[in-house]
């Protein structure tokens, strides 16, 4: 049997990344809403722009920094590459490219999901229903995940899909942690803090596990440690790193002729940086720099995978 066409491998890899990204964005918006509370204007909503590095780009096309404009920018603006709508469109476009390799069930789900948010307008989003909308997006992405699990061929398509998914998931965990830390670690009103750290962990569906691992303790530090290293947590960076390694190994066995030196090098850099940890005294600034490094490592792996398995010519 011939190997998978490079383009389809790339489509499946990116389908996974965009589906995971849409879900992560929904989580991020939901948690930002929790932090902003019922405030509809001002600094708290602008913070998400700063953290995502979108402030300048946003201000080029938008006058207002009120809640609903910013929400529409992240949820519905298909021209904004950091929006849910954009991620869903790209997930669908990649699925369309590899359409004949995926199940009709998965395709139909992604097609309907895309159509639904392509039709949604700013008027449909209010501060009062943001959580509901985010919840819906999360559930829809997870349904997609479930269909992939139950229908995608267990060969190259599966390995490339999971590789993409785990790289994206690790990347998104570092971003959520970054936002949480910058937003919360500086504050010293403990009552507010515990509620908000709990909300952060809940938004990643890890609350119970976190409680059982850290029954008492310093929130900021333990949350960071949990999100980065807890092997049992489905979104921890270390857990994703194991899965990345596993799928790279499977691909190596499956496609022995492909040179993987560049992938190996980027992967060991990532593993080494992850193992070294963010250091003893954890400050927001230091953590941020550490997370940036991990993000660069993940981008490096993605790029090396691209060059090895999906070369243009």
């Amino acid at each position: 049997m011939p190997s998978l066409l490079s383009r389809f491998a790339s489509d499946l890899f990116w389908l996974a990344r965009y589906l995971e990204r849409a879900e992560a964005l929904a989580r991020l918006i939901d948690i930002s809403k929790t932090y902003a509370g019922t405030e509809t204007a001002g600094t708290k909503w602008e913070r998400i722009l700063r953290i995502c590095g979108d402030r300048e780009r946003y201000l080029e096309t938008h006058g207002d920094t009120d809640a609903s404009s910013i929400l529409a920018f992240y949820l519905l603006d298909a021209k904004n590459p950091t929006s849910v709508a954009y991620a869903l469109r790209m997930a669908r476009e990649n699925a369309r490219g590899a359409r004949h390799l995926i199940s009709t069930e998965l395709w139909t789900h992604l097609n309907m999901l895309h159509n639904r948010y392509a039709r949604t307008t700013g008027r449909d989003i209010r501060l009062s229903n943001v959580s509901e909308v985010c919840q819906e997006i999360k559930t829809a992405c997870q349904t997609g995940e479930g269909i992939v699990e139950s229908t995608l061929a267990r060969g190259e398509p599966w390995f490339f899909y999971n590789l993409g998914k785990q790289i994206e998931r690790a990347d998104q965990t570092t971003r959520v942690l970054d936002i949480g830390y910058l937003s919360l670690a500086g504050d010293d009103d403990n009552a507010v803090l515990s509620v908000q750290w709990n909300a952060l962990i809940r938004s990643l569906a890890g609350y119970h596990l976190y409680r059982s691992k850290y029954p008492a303790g310093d929130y900021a530090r333990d949350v960071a440690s949990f999100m980065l290293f807890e092997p049992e947590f489905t979104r921890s960076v270390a857990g994703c790193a194991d899965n990345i390694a596993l799928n790279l190994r499977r691909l190596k066995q499956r496609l022995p002729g492909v040179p993987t030196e560049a992938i190996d090098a980027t992967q060991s850099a990532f593993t080494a940086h992850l193992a070294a940890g963010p250091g003893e005294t954890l400050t927001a600034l230091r953590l941020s720099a550490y997370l940036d490094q991990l993000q660069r490592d993940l981008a490096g792996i993605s790029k090396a995978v691209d060059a090895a398995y999906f070369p243009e010519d």
Partner: protein
Amino acid sequence: MLQPGTSDQTSPRATAAGGLLGAYDPDGFFCELASQRAGNPQVTQIWQRLDAMDRASLRRRARLADQELFNLGITFTVYSDRDAIDRVLPFDVIPRILTARDWDQIRRGVEQRVTAINLFLRDIYNTGHIFRDGVVPEELVKRNPQYRREMEDFVPPKGVYAHIAGIDIVRNEAGGFMVLEDNARTPSGVSYVIENRHLMMRAFPDLAEGIAIADVDDYGRQLAKTLQAVAPANVTGPTAVVLTPGTFNSAYFEHIFLAREMGVPLVEGRDLVVENDRVFMRTTSGLEPVHVIYRRIDDDFLDPHAFRKESTLGVPGLFAAYRKGNVTLANAVGTGAADDKAIYAYMPRIIKYYLQQDPILNNVDTHICREKGGLAYTLDNLDKLVTKPVGGSGGYGVVVGPHASQKALREVRRQVEADPANFISQPMIKLSVVPTLTRQGVEPRHVDLRPFAVTGDSTWVLPGGLSRVALKRGSLVVNSSQGGGSKDTWVLA
């Protein structure tokens, strides 16, 4: 051709007051349902079941079917300056019925026609007997832009050129079938035949229950078998692919469908590369050989080295690999020389010439404006005739005389006089109708039929075919680009 027994034109009696078909009136046209009830218990049963359905339930099921098409992404994309809009090909829920006897004639007629087309293509690109024997004028063929000199003195595996053909057939008011057009390049629509059936069986299991209808599910297997059969002779276990212009093509859904039905990769030009006159695809573990390409890209765009230089859809060097016999293209290059509207007029003579048989399916009378008599007749009768540019497709440029305004008639006269060779004319055929769900209720609408034939070692015709329906009242134009829809086609056992 008048067929005794199937030309019953009695208007349907109102079966029950208020029945769905109670007020249905085919208005003198041959109705694929009403006119075939007499003496046919299956057709009668379908009629009665339909008649017993209430309109609200029919509408509800029709809406669900439309929604399902949209959700499945069985859409074609319409591009405007700003947006890409996915549209569903309108689907009508009342099936078009073909009796076993009708189908037998169509199947044999299509096989005969496709066989003649393949013999004709082999002849014109090689020995040219048909020119020397004075049956078809040589310059008519060789001046056709679809004629490819590059194909001269070359015979593709097993002499097959038109591996996939779609023959457009209409039925006149006497119930006789006639060929309206041959499609020997890259005929599309087969995916709708199969998807329409799936849709129909989900939405109307009760309508078909207990009635034997020919399956349409075998198309993918037959096509895959055909592509294997025409692979280069020295290859064992040949690899076939479907070549698409890409996701932006309006028929992309069908390309996906074909690749899925055959279990082969759906590739774009950029996925293929030619080295030493051999074709490879770019895979995750490097280049792997390709032996047969079902290409859904026109000749012009296939290979920038051989044809249009600016094409970015094709594969540089592909044609040279083809001529070397290292890869098979389906369909062959240059098949457009056989499905041209001008050549169409000669098809009955072409069939007779190669097969020594009378055509099983007749042509519509055709006046060739490049010929003096044909031109004079056309200009004298423009208001009664259907005038068509020979190079057009998709129904564009067709002027239906009896329905045209004075202004449109003056314009077509000007065009025909300026370039007679570009036109043919035909009498207006009173196309048959099928009951169709419209805003006003169930009304007759005109249909045609495109059966699909697949040819490798032999020719196989998919039972039924695509029934296209003109959804506008009185309209004869069934093309999807101009307000046409489709129906499921039931071949009765």
